[in-house]
């Protein structure tokens, strides 16, 4: 059933995959790379709030919102985004 070609292929697959997997273990020990997530998260938050403000403006213009609600929510969002921007600034200063 099994011819030489098959054997060779199996051998290659086996050695290749095992070698590939264990290789990092023989390297120098690496520390876990720093979490870049936090800054990214803040930036994402900023973007999300900006988008929310835009959408709010649009909803208002279309007429899905009354003025009171619109102003209230808008101010709330603006305050929030100000906080986030502040954090981003302090974060990049640290770096």
């Amino acid at each position, binding site marked *: *059933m*099994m011819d030489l*070609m*098959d054997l060779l*292929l*199996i051998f290659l*697959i*086996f050695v290749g*995959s095992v070698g*590939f*997997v*264990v*290789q*990092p*273990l023989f*390297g120098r*020990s*690496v*520390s*876990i*790379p720093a*979490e*870049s*997530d936090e800054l*990214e*998260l803040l930036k*994402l938050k900023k*973007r*999300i709030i900006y988008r*929310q403000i*835009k*959408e709010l403006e*649009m*909803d208002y*213009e*279309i*007429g*899905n*919102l*009354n003025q009171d*609600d619109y102003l209230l*929510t808008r101010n709330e969002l603006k305050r929030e985004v100000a906080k986030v921007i502040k954090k981003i600034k302090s974060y990049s200063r640290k770096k």
Partner: protein
Amino acid sequence: MPVVGSVALNLGLGFSILTILILVFYLHTKDYRLYLTGQRSALGVSVLAIIATLVLINELLRGNFDVDYVAHYTSLETPLLFKFSALWAGQSGSLLFWLSILSVYSLIVIFLYRNRHRKLMPWILIVLTSVQLFFYTLINFITNPFEPTSADFVVANGNGLNPLLQNVTMALHPPTLYLGFVGFSIPFAFAIAALITKETNPLWIRSIRRWSLVTWLFLSIGIILGGWWAYQELGWGGYWAWDPVENASFMPWLTATAFIHSIMIQEKKNMLRVWNMVLIILTFGLSVFGTFLTRSGVLSSVHSFAESPLGPMFIYFVILILVVSTALIIRRLPLLKSRKRLESFTSRESGFLFNNVVFIVICFAVFWGTIFPIISEAVRGTKITVGPPFFNQVTVPIGLFLLFLTGVGPLLAWRRTSKQGFIKNFTIPTIAALIGLIVFLYLGFTGYVLVAQTLIVFVIVAILLEFYRGINARRRRFGENPAQALLRMIRKNRSRYGGYIVHLGIVFMFVGFVGGAFNQEKEFSLKPGESEQLGEYNFQLKNLREEERLNHYAWIADLRATDTHNKFITILHPEKRVYFFRSPDPDRRQAHSELDIYKGIIKDIYSVFTGIEVDKNTAYFKIMINPLVWWVWLGGYVLVFGALISLWPARRMI
């Protein structure tokens, strides 16, 4: 060659166990080298599955009948495309196919997030590899596609694929469905990882939103293709029969649809976090359950289910998923609880919430109807079958309520809708719906049909109004012309307007469903020259021909359709075919009715050549008049178009 595939499967099994062990070890020691090793090992698990699949494809294309699977599902005459699609024609092949799709997805995950989600990734890989391990176990120990053909006989030619399945749509339907089924493993892995690591930041929610939209789209396309195939090939004149196999794909679609709605609230308001977890887990659970339903043989009878360990293993797996996930959610409840509350019934949020409840409730009804026969047989010994009338009767009113929500939801403001807002947004659609109601009443419609028609008018007007207002706002603000405004508006708010377009597609489908209430059918026999009446149409058999073709023998009818004013409409050519007609064994010969459909915006004329008496020169037909079916397919296209708009990457990838 098949032995290479077998070995790849064995190795894959070993590697998946190894991956889990290494990653767990990494989580203990925090030695990053171990993580890298684990990641590579996970890569290996996926690559090995793909190698095994490629080997099987190679055997299928070569027609190596020494492999039982190949002998079973292909023959020398099978066209190349269907030799390939035989990969998912049988049980073991389709399980391998499931695994290899998951492997492709898992490779994408490893590649995309190699530098992100550091806290989550080890657990994501553990979850994904565990799912792979499950399928590797099934394939290695229970149904191995590389099983050689029994030694005591030689196969000169394989069985070949059922002619019904030799159809391009049918070749595409299972893979798209599987892409959808399997795709939900990724959001599931993310959800479990987030629960375990107590990750609360919303970054991962963004990552899985796209995943779930893509898989939802695949699932939708798969379901629509299935309906299309049934309509084109099966000859009973419909596209949806509430067959358990169809339900199996419909249930995860329902929960996935609920999820892609409620995830928006989580993104915007950070609410409904527990609920979204539940939806992800339910969708994945139902996907696995669906694979189980279609592949374990439990549907034919509980006894065939008990004969093979495959069914019980699937059940254990689903139970394991549900138990572990539920336990995790309960433990993390305090973390997941949101501080914000819903404020008012007339808010966008509450619209979403009720939409979710309705989806879940439909899902429950379908689930109940699907498993009731199985349960009744297992518990009471007598099988009680649940027919389409049950599903139709139960789901029609709920579906109409959902249609109503589709129209109302987008008109509601976030948080709460003020009185003026209410009047402003609802006046025009409501008036339009009332006018529609009066017109349809006058035309003599009643009952559900009338309700559906009124709602359809309401929703279409509501959606168009939303577009109109958006365009107007931009025109006022930026002085753009309408076309410009429309394009820019969509580009700036892809997910929103894409979503509305999807809604429009769904409404078109409802138009088609309403048409189903007016189907007509008739069975009759004709000799050449004779004619028969159905509804406002007249059918005359002009001619009866026969033809010998490459792999079948065919009788072809030329059926001339005219309307009451004797105006010519079309000539239909339904065929009666016999496959394997050269086979000396009459049992091998297989009849097949190739139907012909005249498709129109208002009505389809559907013709089936049901039988022939050669000695009497008489042909038998079944003719159906199916109004508005065309709209179902149109709705399908619109839905796909809308989903693509939502998915189209914005300039800034998040």
